[in-house]
């Protein structure tokens, strides 16, 4: 089976953000929407700096897919974690669930009051160049572009130094598989157990990595399943989430309240309903899970350092 993944050699990364812009150019993403971000992390003594290109880790055990109530988020048969915009209801559960903070609920804004010519024509191609408001977007490995097979995703094709590699992790002859087999390539926050398919060579220490501005949470919200006999209209309430940017080393209580999820089944159709009466219970459960996850993570790290 084909299982696509990336290896990024940080010792070759020149921190130029070409991948960030290549992604925007290739996918025509909206204002401030960056499927790839370039993060900088530092060490004070001795002073040192790392530039880390960062995006969806295409986890094999993808929490975003697990929590998606509509099946919009899925892992395709090549191991690419994708979102089907036609099924996405913009509930944001996956945004919360992603421990890597690699998903974004987009508003569908445009750069200028009207579409520029390159956007108009580019969007006509469809695939992930076409954007829908109020859905969740993320790295797609440019899997919708027929040229990707030959040249790799846009970020890989345009990386000026060859720091980015992409290919089939299951093909022992691929560059990425070789790098992973060599043992040099590691994943970020591997202790979370999501089995990311994005590997890095030359990552700084865990202590330095804790500066990554990503959320410290790992949540599976508990939807409630019940069977009803009549069809209901989907009621969508706004999910207010608080972004927690503290490093993972700090244990904290999540004050976010996630709406309860009710998946209702009818004779022929499944209707999603979002209710707020589950708030209290959900809050408690979610809080418990967060604390559990964090302590498990801390324990794991402790045992690893031994």
């Amino acid at each position, binding site marked *: 089976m084909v299982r696509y993944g990336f290896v990024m050699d940080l010792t070759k990364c*020149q*921190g*130029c*953000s*070409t991948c*960030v*812009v*290549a992604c925007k*150019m290739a996918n025509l993403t909206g*204002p401030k929407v960056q499927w790839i971000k370039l993060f*900088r992390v530092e060490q*004070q003594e001795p*002073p040192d*700096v790392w530039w880390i290109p960062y995006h969806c880790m295409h986890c*094999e*055990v*993808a*929490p975003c897919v*697990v*929590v998606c109530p*509509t*099946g919009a988020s*899925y*892992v395709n048969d*090549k191991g*690419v974690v994708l979102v089907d915009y036609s*099924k996405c*209801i913009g509930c944001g559960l996956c945004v919360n669930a992603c421990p890597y903070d690699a998903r974004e609920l987009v508003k569908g804004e445009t*750069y*200028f*009051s009207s579409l*520029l*010519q*390159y956007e108009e024509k*580019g969007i006509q*191609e*469809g*695939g992930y160049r076409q954007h829908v408001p109020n859905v969740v977007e993320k790295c797609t490995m440019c899997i919708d*572009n*027929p*040229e990707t097979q030959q*040249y790799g995703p846009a970020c890989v*094709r*345009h*990386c*000026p130094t060859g720091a980015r590699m992409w290919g089939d992790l299951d093909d022992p002859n691929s560059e990425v598989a070789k790098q992973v087999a060599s043992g040099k390539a590691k994943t970020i926050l591997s202790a979370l*157990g999501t089995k990311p398919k994005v590997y890095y060579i030359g990552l700084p220490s865990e202590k330095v990595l804790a500066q990554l501005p990503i959320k410290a949470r*790992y949540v*599976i919200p*508990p*939807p409630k*399943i019940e069977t009803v006999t009549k069809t209901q209209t989907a009621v969508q309430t706004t999910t207010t989430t608080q972004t927690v940017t503290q490093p993972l080393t700090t244990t904290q209580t999540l004050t976010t309240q996630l709406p309860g999820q009710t998946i209702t089944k009818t004779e022929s159709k*499944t*209707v*999603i309903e979002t209710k707020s009466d589950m708030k209290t219970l959900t809050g408690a*459960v979610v809080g418990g*899970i967060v604390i*559990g*996850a964090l302590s*498990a993570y801390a324990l794991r790290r402790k045992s690893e350092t031994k």
Partner: protein
Amino acid sequence: MYILNSSLSRRNLIKACLIATSITAIAPSLEIMEKIDTKLLVEAQATPQRKIGEYKVTYTLCDACNQGPGCGLKFYIKDGVATYIAPREDHPYIPCLKGLSYLQQLYHPERLLYPMKRTTPKSSEDPGWVRITWDEALNIIAEKLKEIANKYGPEAVLFYAGDPKENRPMLQRLSIAFNSPNYGTESSTCFQGVNMGGLLTVGFGGTGSPPDGSTKTVILWSTNPAWSSPYGSTFKTFLSAKQKGVKFVVIDPRITPTTKLADIHLRPLPGTDLALALAMAYVIINENLYDKEFVEMWTYGFEEFKKYLMGEMDGEPKTPEWAEKKTSVPAEKIIEAARLIATNKPTTWMGSASGDAHNHQTVSTTRAKWILMTLIGMIDVPGGIRVSTYPIPIPSPGTGGMWFSFNSRMLPGGDLYEKRADVKMNFFPAWRRLVDQIQMVRFPEYVEAGLIKAAVLVGANSRIHPQPSLFQNALKKLEFAVAIDYFIRPWTHNYVDIVLPAAMGPERIAPPLVIGRTVYLREIAVPPRGEVREDWQILMDIGVKLGLGEKLFNGNLTAAINEYMSKAGITVEQLRAQPGYKITIPAPGPEEYKKYETGKLRPDGKPGFNTPTGKVEIYSTILKELNLDPLPIYRDPIYRTLPEANGFPLILLGGPRVPMYTHSKQREIPWLRELMPRPVVRINPHDAETRGIRDGDEVVVVSPWGKINAVAEVTVIVPKGVVDMFHGWYGSDVNDITPRVFDPISGFPAYKQVPVDVRKDS
């Protein structure tokens, strides 16, 4: 209404299980995750596909950055509109983010598409731009320029090129054809000062050589190609050299992706590089590590230099300990670096046209580096500094047109030399002797003295020099000015009469570029928008209207390009007959070295270097003749010597390169602007803490000459005591707080050693 087609699917079953577990046990989710059979998550759902359809693929060369590497761009054109950019397969360089953002720049809604004329006097805030026809614009320009030439002489018209640089050969040709030697460029603060260091010392210029197959040590001095030229070439060369075990000595006060390659990273305080170079020379001479044979045979002034180093001239031996006090680099690190470059040979050096070009001692500092390379015998040898044996005789647009532009007429001995503004006002004698451009840093003085009355500006920015308001006022005083540009940029164009729309790189043809040994000609890759014209064409059109058609090819672009390539013996027709419009010219023989022995470095064919003494001039006879420092004598930077500096404890590196912008350009492009939306001043955590500044705080950067606003970025990239800030931000311009202090040899401003303080904006 969101309706799912499936009933309780496999997916939902997994979910149900998960949920059950989590609710009953409130178990750590980690364990849940481990229980999931990953295969069950995979869905055979169809992956969306782009419908690519029919495309035309076109090829061009990028001009988005300042070095003019000419990276290869491949455009995908659908119905006459570019929708995708990829690297060219037939080109060695992968373009960087600036090249890719051409898509957004080409179709930018605020782009200048038609000739514009101002309708209000220059004193009013709004120029009241109105659209005019090309004919009308060209007629006004020709009439005004003729009128001024009649009144004050043609030399009263300034021809000035900013960035991109590719218009220069034609602009200079127009200038000289018009009989004005007052042709200037932004290289007055960029490449030329560093180039002069080489010209004065070894008789050829440049900023050093990249490592080749035999190089064992590389010195990277005040250069960070990772950000100044992020395209896929320079940094990649370093990476592969590093992989082969080549040693790197990197000299930069900051931590950058380039300094991360270093085996030895020396972090001198800004403006003290000369002290570092002298101490390294001291170690090399003192420990007898220098190439005695080469020094004896091929250098001039070694004994004088040695006397200076040993302290016989000023009582201060230039020891590593002395340099430690000046530079704050530990003496033992200086010794270690000096020994490495002198013993692990071949050694090469690469510098930059920024870094310490922006120094109070630009030329002396560069000369000291050339002298270091001379001492270790690394001039024109394999693995060291190389000089091309068979250069392709097509001018490099960045340095102007040379013979194509009749440049000898404005150099010493030329019929227009005496009419140069810098000659008339006796500014920077070494500059005007060596450089075929006037030194633009004194533009306000030229206007004040009535020497310049009109200007033709291509890609010009009025704010590139210290104290830019002086330049804006000077521009305002001109009787007539025309600018050629991509956008209306008020900080410059508010002071001109006409603005003409230029075609961007992918919309034009000229000039051809030489990359390696291959000559590339652009095609019109993207259909030009509005009424834009390519700059070579505009300049020829102006020339034709001025009655200079004969010298400007009667406006025929193909004829102009053919003349430009004539010495290489190729034509536009031949290039167009080749796929990719490119021809590789093989070298007639193998690369030769030590050409000073065979007379191939001098135009007269005599052995030696192209300097007055025929030797490497450690002691410069030209500088001696002009009463300037003939030896690279160290002088303290301005933050130590200027009385005003008192009370400004930090040192500002003004204008270090960033990957997303070229100078003041590209701020209009959202893809790039998102990467650095606002002016950022980088400050070390120690300095930030003592000032109560946190990352992201609004701060003011204050110098004795003014203050500007910025956002603080607290980072160890800059060492304690040093801050840096990119230039070209209108409204928060580092040049506003930079003094007019110039290197006496080149006239370069000391951008990278300004005494400042950073305070929280309250």
